[in-house]
């Protein structure tokens, strides 16, 4: 049965995490540095929303302010942590040997598996904005992996481009999930067929306007749909940018 929810931008959890005081060991940088995080699903102190969607547990719309602002090096297991850089530059460091300077369009999938540490750092004055998606893996304690990719918005204009999953050219992960990007420069109808009715799709509007199932979604609004054979996403006037996360439910 088709089921849907709409989550407005201002209904999400919000945290401002300082580089001083109780969170100082977690967030680094100049005393003025801070991170803002809007959470679509319950995470950390935000526990008033949905617990997740399919295998998604964390969907964070985050911004790192001021040079040196970072999540300091910290450990993970199991979760597949994906980051999609929207603005600014993200220095990602991990214990698999990854050291990368990522810009807009760049993304990575860090599968922490049997254990790994990472740091997420903005070294510049310009704020760094990224979407962080955490997925449960399909097996516990896999060998950890790190893979990065790049989304070319010009080449991907007016279509849906798979970034993560088992499509050709996408970064593979050990989960029945697929993350795609839909960018359009004007009105259009984009049909999305989930792998099965047992899959759901969480569509997050990075920017622009999206119409779907009778709802109009604006910047940072989102909708989760499950049990659909096909979903039609209609983009509005101007530029629209959407992240689509499909997952087994």
């Amino acid at each position, binding site marked *: 049965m088709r089921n849907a929810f709409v989550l407005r931008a201002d209904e999400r959890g919000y945290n401002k995490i300082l580089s001083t005081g109780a969170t100082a060991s977690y967030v680094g940088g100049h005393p003025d540095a801070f991170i803002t995080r809007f959470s679509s699903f319950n995470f950390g102190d935000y526990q008033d929303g949905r617990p997740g969607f399919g295998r998604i547990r964390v969907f964070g719309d985050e911004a790192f302010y001021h040079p040196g602002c970072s999540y300091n090096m910290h450990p993970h297991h199991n979760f597949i942590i994906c980051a999609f850089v929207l603005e600014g530059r993200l220095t990602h460091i991990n214990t698999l040997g990854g050291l990368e300077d990522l810009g807009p369009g760049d993304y990575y999938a860090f599968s922490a598996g*049997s254990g790994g540490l990472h740091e997420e750092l903005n070294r510049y004055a310009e704020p760094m904005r990224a979407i962080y998606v955490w997925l449960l893996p399909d097996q*516990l304690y896999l*060998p950890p992996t790190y893979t990065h990719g790049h989304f070319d918005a010009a080449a991907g204009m007016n279509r849906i481009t798979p970034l993560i999953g088992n499509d050709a050219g996408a970064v593979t992960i050990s989960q029945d999930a697929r993350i795609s990007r839909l960018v359009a420069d004007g009105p259009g109808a984009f049909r999305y067929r989930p792998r099965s009715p047992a899959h759901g799709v969480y569509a997050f509007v990075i920017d622009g306007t999206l119409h779907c199932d009778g709802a109009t979604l604006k910047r940072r609004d989102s909708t989760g749909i499950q049990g659909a054979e096909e979903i039609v996403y209609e983009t509005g006037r101007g530029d629209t940018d959407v992240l689509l996360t499909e997952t087994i439910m």
Partner: protein
Amino acid sequence: MTDDALKRWICLGCGFSYDEALGLPEHGLPPGTRWRDIADDWVCPDCGTPKARFEMVEIPYAEGQPRAAA
């Protein structure tokens, strides 16, 4: 899996997992310790996330696992 089967729990703050069958002997929890028998104020040894923010999961282990979760 019956209700009485030994279960696995995952920390939603970092992905650390607790397996009732294995316990966490290095943290004073012998193998077989049930999740319900762990104190409510127990926190994730890796990241400090409270016990209430763990989720029971039925995810199989990867081949060759579990080794001691280090």
